[in-house]
């Protein structure tokens, strides 16, 4: 496209935005609300994902060895487990060591068990891929001379269920808002198309190409989308700045960390802007297809 033509299209699209100021306001507001929600949702979900990852990395499988296992059996078990695919590390802890730990944690009352220790020898196993923890645990429990296998005590499952539920609710809400915003934009564009039907008719009559006729409307939709993304980008950037400034010093050295401000906030901003453009362009396409028939 020639620069002169592009300038003409841009001028036309701006004219329409000025002309329908009320519809412009309504559709930009709808985009703003939608994208604000998208932004906050992305902040929360991405950080929860990060937290889940952090927590998962800490999940160990606890393998209880049968009481009647001999020392050789324990040695062979250790090599069997550590040679399994998907196992990152194994750590053996005798029942005496286990008791010492318990006494350290819960106090001397437990030291009376030193006479007849009721605990088991234990392997602490870590999976290479935290998501595979469950499968690794299952595989280990199929081995001989294993009394019991425990891991995470359902903690990961709970977190994942929570994450999935949150994600689904958020996505449905965002989808509904997305359609509202698109609908409002498509209505705005329809008004422009109707206001300019004479011009369009003549353009087509004298042989303007279909793209020449469409582009000003696509641009108008795009501007609406972009205008609707400005406030969300600003607010989300500010909000996350506050959150990271508050939380990061307090979380230093902890297992759980928030995502760093940059480059995360650039990615979120780009996502909001792209979604704005997408909503706008898609909205105007809906009207162009229906009312322009080119």
């Amino acid at each position, binding site marked *: 496209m020639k620069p002169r033509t592009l300038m003409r299209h841009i001028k036309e699209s701006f004219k329409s935005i000025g002309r329908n100021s009320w519809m412009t306001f309504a559709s930009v507001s709808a985009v703003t609300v939608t994208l604000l929600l998208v932004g906050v949702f992305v902040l929360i979900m991405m950080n929860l994902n990060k937290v889940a990852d952090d927590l998962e990395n800490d999940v160990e499988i606890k393998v209880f060895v049968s009481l009647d296992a001999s020392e050789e059996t324990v040695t062979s078990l250790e090599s069997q487990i550590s040679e399994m695919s998907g196992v990152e590390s194994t750590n053996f802890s005798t029942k005496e060591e286990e008791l010492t730990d318990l006494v350290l944690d819960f106090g001397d009352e437990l030291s009376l068990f030193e006479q007849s220790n009721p605990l088991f020898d234990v392997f602490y196993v870590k999976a290479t891929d935290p998501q595979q923890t469950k499968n690794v645990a299952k595989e280990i429990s199929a081995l001989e001379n294993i009394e019991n296998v425990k891991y995470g005590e359902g903690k990961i499952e709970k977190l994942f269920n929570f994450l999935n539920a949150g994600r689904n609710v958020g996505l449905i809400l965002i989808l509904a808002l997305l359609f509202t915003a698109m609908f409002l934009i498509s209505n705005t564009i329809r008004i422009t198309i109707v206001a300019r039907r*004479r011009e369009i*008719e*003549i*353009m087509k*009559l*004298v*042989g*303007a*190409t279909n793209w*020449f006729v469409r582009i000003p409307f696509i641009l108008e939709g795009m501007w609406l989308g972009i205008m609707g993304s400005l406030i969300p980008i600003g607010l989300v950037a500010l909000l996350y700045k506050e959150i990271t400034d508050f939380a990061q010093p307090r979380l230093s050295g902890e297992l759980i960390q928030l995502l760093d401000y940059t480059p995360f906030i650039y990615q979120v901003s780009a996502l909001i802007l792209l979604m704005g453009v997408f909503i706008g362009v898609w909205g105007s396409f809906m009207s162009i297809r229906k009312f322009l028939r080119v």
Partner: protein
Amino acid sequence: MIQMKNVYKKYPNGIVALNGLNVEIEQGEFVYIVGPSGAGKSTFIKMMYREERPSSGQMFVDEIDIATIKNRKVPMLRRQIGVVFQDFKLLTKLNVYENVAFALEVIEEKPADIKRRVMEVLDLVGLKHKAKMFPTELSGGEQQRVSIARSIVNMPKVMIADEPTGNLDPETAWDIMDLFERINKAGTTIIMATHNQQIVNTLRHRVIAIEGGLIVRDVVGGDYGYEA
């Protein structure tokens, strides 16, 4: 220039507007399309710039197949054809110059060429001195001259007019016909649907009469053939 073979047009509502037309029109001809209201004249005209498609039959305009032309090729067809209507179809927010220039701007002609061509055609239609005026400030005849200027500014091979004098008083109508004659003399094919008996009988050209979607008469230099 234009060939139609058994062209048949049925509108979605079931009305058969054209019921098997066979016509051949040569480059440079001047053709009147006459016939009663509802005969199919406008449908015939719309077919030529692919506003409507034939339901069956073959039709070529400047060797472009109207029955099968792709939507995205239609603009190229329309650049070969100037169209004029009874109601002028001018843009009221643009002045005379801008209305004519519009036709070249939207097909992305060079600005220098646009200026030159627009001034040339405004001179031809006798409205150079009113270039800055707006359509509402012009008489009907002047408005029609602007619309004619717009239709020929791209130097089309064919000019199609659907009752171009229908809204004009008889005297103004003659001015418009004078303009058409000059455009035709310069080599442009003209096809004009009309109800104006006096014009058809005075400025003799080929007359194609349509009734009920059929060509009932096709005579070079014929008369109007209906009572006014």
